Protein backbone atom coordinates (compact mmCIF):
# COMPACT_ATOMS: atom_id res chain seq x y z
CA UNK A 1 0.00 0.00 0.00
CA UNK A 2 1.54 3.29 -1.02
CA UNK A 3 1.54 6.58 0.89
CA UNK A 4 -1.17 8.13 -1.31
CA UNK A 5 -3.65 5.33 -0.51
CA UNK A 6 -2.84 5.53 3.21
CA UNK A 7 -3.47 9.26 3.08
CA UNK A 8 -6.87 8.78 1.45
CA UNK A 9 -7.93 6.10 3.95
CA UNK A 10 -6.79 8.25 6.90
CA UNK A 11 -8.72 11.23 5.47
CA UNK A 12 -11.89 9.14 5.12
CA UNK A 13 -11.56 7.85 8.70
CA UNK A 14 -10.96 11.38 10.04
CA UNK A 15 -13.95 12.83 8.15
CA UNK A 16 -16.11 9.96 9.40
CA UNK A 17 -14.95 10.48 12.99
CA UNK A 18 -15.87 14.18 12.72
CA UNK A 19 -19.11 13.67 10.82
CA UNK A 20 -20.72 11.13 13.16
CA UNK A 21 -20.72 13.32 16.32
CA UNK A 22 -21.70 16.40 14.28
CA UNK A 23 -24.68 14.60 12.73
CA UNK A 24 -25.63 13.20 16.14
CA UNK A 25 -25.65 16.80 17.43
CA UNK A 26 -27.70 18.10 14.51
CA UNK A 27 -30.30 15.35 14.98
CA UNK A 28 -30.85 16.52 18.56
CA UNK A 29 -31.35 20.21 17.71
CA UNK A 30 -34.88 21.50 18.31
CA UNK A 31 -36.90 21.76 15.06
CA UNK A 32 -36.59 25.14 13.29
CA UNK A 33 -39.26 27.65 14.22
CA UNK A 34 -40.08 26.10 17.61
CA UNK A 35 -40.73 29.13 19.80
CA UNK A 36 -39.75 27.67 23.19
CA UNK A 37 -36.39 26.28 22.07
CA UNK A 38 -33.51 27.41 24.37
CA UNK A 39 -32.02 29.55 21.60
CA UNK A 40 -35.20 31.64 21.38
CA UNK A 41 -36.21 31.88 25.03
CA UNK A 42 -33.38 33.74 26.80
CA UNK A 43 -31.26 36.46 25.23
CA UNK A 44 -33.01 36.56 21.85
CA UNK A 45 -36.41 36.95 23.49
CA UNK A 46 -35.12 40.02 25.35
CA UNK A 47 -33.67 41.45 22.12
CA UNK A 48 -36.97 41.00 20.29
CA UNK A 49 -38.96 42.45 23.20
CA UNK A 50 -36.80 45.50 23.98
CA UNK A 51 -34.47 45.67 20.95
CA UNK A 52 -36.20 48.50 19.09
CA UNK A 53 -36.29 50.58 22.29
CA UNK A 54 -32.87 49.77 23.83
CA UNK A 55 -30.94 49.07 20.63
CA UNK A 56 -32.12 52.31 19.08
CA UNK A 57 -33.04 50.78 15.73
CA UNK A 58 -36.23 49.48 14.16
CA UNK A 59 -34.19 46.87 12.33
CA UNK A 60 -33.21 44.53 15.17
CA UNK A 61 -30.24 43.19 13.21
CA UNK A 62 -28.71 46.67 13.09
CA UNK A 63 -29.45 47.12 16.79
CA UNK A 64 -27.54 43.93 17.57
CA UNK A 65 -24.67 44.83 15.21
CA UNK A 66 -24.07 48.41 16.34
CA UNK A 67 -25.21 48.30 19.96
CA UNK A 68 -25.52 44.93 21.70
CA UNK A 69 -22.59 43.38 19.83
CA UNK A 70 -20.64 46.51 18.92
CA UNK A 71 -17.31 44.99 19.93
CA UNK A 72 -17.88 42.08 17.50
CA UNK A 73 -18.70 44.50 14.69
CA UNK A 74 -15.60 46.56 15.48
CA UNK A 75 -13.61 43.32 15.14
CA UNK A 76 -15.22 42.65 11.74
CA UNK A 77 -14.35 46.14 10.48
CA UNK A 78 -10.79 45.62 11.71
CA UNK A 79 -10.61 42.21 9.97
CA UNK A 80 -11.66 43.71 6.61
CA UNK A 81 -9.03 46.45 6.91
CA UNK A 82 -6.36 43.90 7.90
CA UNK A 83 -7.34 41.73 4.91
CA UNK A 84 -6.63 44.64 2.58
CA UNK A 85 -3.30 45.34 4.34
CA UNK A 86 -2.29 41.69 3.86
CA UNK A 87 -3.30 41.61 0.19
CA UNK A 88 -1.54 44.93 -0.48
CA UNK A 89 1.59 43.61 1.23
CA UNK A 90 1.62 40.37 -0.82
CA UNK A 91 0.07 41.26 -4.19
CA UNK A 92 0.81 44.98 -4.29
CA UNK A 93 4.56 44.41 -4.57
CA UNK A 94 4.37 41.75 -7.29
CA UNK A 95 5.53 42.95 -10.70
CA UNK A 96 2.67 43.73 -12.99
CA UNK A 97 2.33 41.39 -15.94
CA UNK A 98 2.69 43.31 -19.17
CA UNK A 99 -0.33 41.96 -21.06
CA UNK A 100 -2.77 44.56 -22.36
CA UNK A 101 -6.38 43.94 -21.40
CA UNK A 102 -8.85 44.15 -24.27
CA UNK A 103 -11.26 47.09 -23.98
CA UNK A 104 -14.91 46.04 -23.50
CA UNK A 105 -17.52 46.51 -26.21
CA UNK A 106 -19.11 49.99 -26.46
CA UNK A 107 -22.40 48.53 -25.20
CA UNK A 108 -20.87 47.15 -21.99
CA UNK A 109 -18.97 50.40 -21.51
CA UNK A 110 -22.12 52.51 -21.96
CA UNK A 111 -24.24 50.31 -19.67
CA UNK A 112 -21.65 50.46 -16.89
CA UNK A 113 -21.37 54.26 -17.22
CA UNK A 114 -25.16 54.51 -17.02
CA UNK A 115 -25.46 52.13 -14.06
CA UNK A 116 -22.67 53.49 -11.85
CA UNK A 117 -24.44 56.61 -10.48
CA UNK A 118 -27.56 54.57 -9.72
CA UNK A 119 -25.50 51.95 -7.88
CA UNK A 120 -23.88 54.73 -5.84
CA UNK A 121 -27.25 56.24 -4.88
CA UNK A 122 -28.66 52.81 -3.99
CA UNK A 123 -25.56 52.08 -1.89
CA UNK A 124 -26.00 55.34 0.06
CA UNK A 125 -29.70 54.55 0.51
CA UNK A 126 -28.84 51.10 1.90
CA UNK A 127 -26.20 52.60 4.23
CA UNK A 128 -28.26 55.40 5.79
CA UNK A 129 -31.45 53.32 6.06
CA UNK A 130 -29.72 50.44 7.85
CA UNK A 131 -31.61 51.13 11.06
CA UNK A 132 -35.10 50.77 9.54
CA UNK A 133 -34.66 48.49 6.52
CA UNK A 134 -32.58 45.38 5.83
CA UNK A 135 -29.07 46.43 4.95
CA UNK A 136 -26.63 48.82 6.54
CA UNK A 137 -22.99 49.77 6.40
CA UNK A 138 -21.59 46.43 5.29
CA UNK A 139 -24.11 45.79 2.51
CA UNK A 140 -23.96 49.37 1.23
CA UNK A 141 -20.17 49.29 1.39
CA UNK A 142 -20.08 46.18 -0.76
CA UNK A 143 -22.31 47.93 -3.31
CA UNK A 144 -19.91 50.91 -3.37
CA UNK A 145 -17.00 48.48 -3.81
CA UNK A 146 -18.86 46.71 -6.62
CA UNK A 147 -19.35 50.06 -8.37
CA UNK A 148 -15.60 50.80 -8.14
CA UNK A 149 -14.76 47.35 -9.52
CA UNK A 150 -17.33 47.62 -12.35
CA UNK A 151 -15.90 50.98 -13.42
CA UNK A 152 -12.37 49.54 -13.24
CA UNK A 153 -13.41 46.61 -15.44
CA UNK A 154 -14.82 48.97 -18.06
CA UNK A 155 -12.10 51.64 -18.14
CA UNK A 156 -9.07 49.80 -16.83
CA UNK A 157 -8.17 50.30 -13.17
CA UNK A 158 -5.93 53.37 -13.49
CA UNK A 159 -8.53 56.12 -14.14
CA UNK A 160 -10.62 54.85 -11.19
CA UNK A 161 -7.63 54.44 -8.86
CA UNK A 162 -6.41 57.94 -9.78
CA UNK A 163 -9.68 59.66 -8.83
CA UNK A 164 -8.11 60.43 -5.46
CA UNK A 165 -4.49 60.13 -4.38
CA UNK A 166 -3.11 56.97 -2.77
CA UNK A 167 -2.88 58.76 0.58
CA UNK A 168 -6.58 59.64 0.43
CA UNK A 169 -7.45 56.04 -0.53
CA UNK A 170 -5.59 54.78 2.55
CA UNK A 171 -7.47 57.20 4.83
CA UNK A 172 -10.78 56.20 3.20
CA UNK A 173 -9.98 52.51 3.73
CA UNK A 174 -9.21 53.18 7.37
CA UNK A 175 -12.47 55.20 7.72
CA UNK A 176 -14.48 52.27 9.11
CA UNK A 177 -11.95 51.49 11.83
CA UNK A 178 -11.31 55.16 12.71
CA UNK A 179 -14.98 56.22 12.84
CA UNK A 180 -15.93 53.14 14.88
CA UNK A 181 -13.07 53.72 17.34
CA UNK A 182 -14.06 57.40 17.65
CA UNK A 183 -17.72 56.58 18.37
CA UNK A 184 -16.62 53.87 20.83
CA UNK A 185 -14.48 56.43 22.70
CA UNK A 186 -17.34 58.98 22.56
CA UNK A 187 -19.40 56.45 24.49
CA UNK A 188 -17.08 56.91 27.46
CA UNK A 189 -18.02 60.56 28.26
CA UNK A 190 -21.63 60.18 26.97
CA UNK A 191 -22.67 56.95 28.71
CA UNK A 192 -19.74 55.82 30.85
CA UNK A 193 -19.08 52.74 28.72
CA UNK A 194 -16.86 52.09 25.74
CA UNK A 195 -19.08 51.40 22.66
CA UNK A 196 -22.03 52.85 24.62
CA UNK A 197 -24.57 54.78 22.52
CA UNK A 198 -26.42 57.67 24.23
CA UNK A 199 -30.05 57.12 25.24
CA UNK A 200 -31.24 60.37 23.64
CA UNK A 201 -32.96 59.08 20.45
CA UNK A 202 -31.92 61.89 18.09
CA UNK A 203 -28.27 61.80 19.12
CA UNK A 204 -28.25 58.00 19.02
CA UNK A 205 -29.73 57.92 15.52
CA UNK A 206 -27.19 60.48 14.35
CA UNK A 207 -24.32 58.46 15.81
CA UNK A 208 -25.64 55.22 14.27
CA UNK A 209 -25.83 56.85 10.83
CA UNK A 210 -22.26 58.17 11.27
CA UNK A 211 -21.17 54.63 12.21
CA UNK A 212 -22.95 53.12 9.19
CA UNK A 213 -21.45 55.73 6.87
CA UNK A 214 -17.97 55.02 8.24
CA UNK A 215 -18.39 51.26 7.86
CA UNK A 216 -19.90 51.66 4.39
CA UNK A 217 -17.35 54.06 2.93
CA UNK A 218 -14.46 52.22 4.59
CA UNK A 219 -15.76 48.83 3.40
CA UNK A 220 -16.30 50.05 -0.16
CA UNK A 221 -12.84 51.61 -0.33
CA UNK A 222 -11.27 48.42 1.09
CA UNK A 223 -13.01 46.25 -1.54
CA UNK A 224 -11.90 48.60 -4.29
CA UNK A 225 -8.38 48.46 -2.86
CA UNK A 226 -8.44 44.65 -2.81
CA UNK A 227 -9.28 44.68 -6.51
CA UNK A 228 -6.66 47.35 -7.35
CA UNK A 229 -3.95 45.37 -5.51
CA UNK A 230 -4.88 42.00 -7.04
CA UNK A 231 -5.23 43.41 -10.55
CA UNK A 232 -1.84 45.12 -10.19
CA UNK A 233 -3.25 48.61 -10.78
CA UNK A 234 -1.96 50.03 -7.53
CA UNK A 235 1.57 49.71 -6.19
CA UNK A 236 1.96 50.09 -2.46
Amino acid at each position, binding site marked *: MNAWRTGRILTTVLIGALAVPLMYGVLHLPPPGQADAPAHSNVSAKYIEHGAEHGGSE*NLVTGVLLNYRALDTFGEVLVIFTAWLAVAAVAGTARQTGHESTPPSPIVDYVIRMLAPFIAVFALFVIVNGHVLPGGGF*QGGVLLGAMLILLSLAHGGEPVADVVSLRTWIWLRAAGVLVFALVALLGLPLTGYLFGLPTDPTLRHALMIVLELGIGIGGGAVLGGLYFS*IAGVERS
Partner: protein
Amino acid sequence: MSPIELLDLVLLALLLTCAIGIARLKDLAACAILFSAYSFILCLVWAHRGAPDVAMTEAAVGAGITTVLFLTVISRVGRREK
Protein backbone atom coordinates in the same frame (compact mmCIF):
# COMPACT_ATOMS: atom_id res chain seq x y z
CA MET B 1 -44.67 17.73 2.78
CA SER B 2 -45.64 21.38 2.54
CA PRO B 3 -44.64 23.45 -0.53
CA ILE B 4 -42.31 25.53 1.68
CA GLU B 5 -40.42 22.43 2.81
CA LEU B 6 -40.28 21.26 -0.80
CA LEU B 7 -38.70 24.56 -1.90
CA ASP B 8 -36.12 24.23 0.90
CA LEU B 9 -35.35 20.69 -0.20
CA VAL B 10 -34.89 21.70 -3.85
CA LEU B 11 -32.62 24.61 -2.87
CA LEU B 12 -30.51 22.41 -0.58
CA ALA B 13 -30.19 19.77 -3.32
CA LEU B 14 -28.99 22.47 -5.73
CA LEU B 15 -26.49 23.71 -3.11
CA LEU B 16 -25.13 20.20 -2.66
CA THR B 17 -24.83 19.73 -6.45
CA CYS B 18 -22.90 23.00 -6.75
CA ALA B 19 -20.61 22.10 -3.83
CA ILE B 20 -19.76 18.69 -5.28
CA GLY B 21 -19.19 20.29 -8.68
CA ILE B 22 -16.78 22.85 -7.20
CA ALA B 23 -14.84 20.11 -5.41
CA ARG B 24 -14.51 17.97 -8.55
CA LEU B 25 -13.85 20.55 -11.31
CA LYS B 26 -10.25 21.23 -12.35
CA ASP B 27 -11.06 24.42 -14.28
CA LEU B 28 -10.68 27.26 -11.76
CA ALA B 29 -12.70 29.78 -13.79
CA ALA B 30 -15.62 27.33 -13.93
CA CYS B 31 -15.23 26.79 -10.17
CA ALA B 32 -15.50 30.55 -9.56
CA ILE B 33 -18.70 30.78 -11.64
CA LEU B 34 -20.17 27.73 -9.92
CA PHE B 35 -19.26 29.24 -6.56
CA SER B 36 -21.17 32.35 -7.56
CA ALA B 37 -24.21 30.19 -8.36
CA TYR B 38 -23.78 28.46 -5.00
CA SER B 39 -23.82 31.84 -3.22
CA PHE B 40 -26.91 32.94 -5.10
CA ILE B 41 -28.81 29.78 -4.15
CA LEU B 42 -27.67 30.25 -0.54
CA CYS B 43 -28.96 33.83 -0.77
CA LEU B 44 -32.39 32.43 -1.76
CA VAL B 45 -32.25 30.09 1.25
CA TRP B 46 -31.52 33.04 3.60
CA ALA B 47 -34.29 35.17 2.07
CA HIS B 48 -36.69 32.23 2.31
CA ARG B 49 -35.70 31.67 5.95
CA GLY B 50 -36.60 35.27 6.82
CA ALA B 51 -33.07 36.72 7.08
CA PRO B 52 -33.06 39.57 4.51
CA ASP B 53 -29.92 41.20 5.98
CA VAL B 54 -27.88 38.03 5.53
CA ALA B 55 -29.43 37.38 2.10
CA MET B 56 -28.40 40.84 0.92
CA THR B 57 -24.83 40.34 2.14
CA GLU B 58 -24.66 36.88 0.56
CA ALA B 59 -25.85 38.21 -2.80
CA ALA B 60 -23.49 41.20 -2.80
CA VAL B 61 -20.39 39.58 -1.30
CA GLY B 62 -20.75 35.91 -2.22
CA ALA B 63 -22.27 36.11 -5.68
CA GLY B 64 -20.76 39.46 -6.66
CA ILE B 65 -17.48 40.64 -5.21
CA THR B 66 -15.78 37.32 -4.40
CA THR B 67 -16.44 36.04 -7.93
CA VAL B 68 -14.76 39.11 -9.43
CA LEU B 69 -11.82 38.81 -7.02
CA PHE B 70 -11.48 35.06 -7.77
CA LEU B 71 -11.56 35.68 -11.53
CA THR B 72 -9.00 38.49 -11.21
CA VAL B 73 -6.65 36.21 -9.28
CA ILE B 74 -7.23 33.38 -11.80
CA SER B 75 -6.40 35.75 -14.67
CA ARG B 76 -3.01 36.29 -13.03
CA VAL B 77 -2.13 32.77 -11.87
CA GLY B 78 -3.52 30.58 -14.64
CA ARG B 79 -6.76 28.79 -15.19
CA ARG B 80 -5.98 25.07 -14.74
CA GLU B 81 -5.40 23.38 -11.41
CA LYS B 82 -2.09 21.51 -11.51
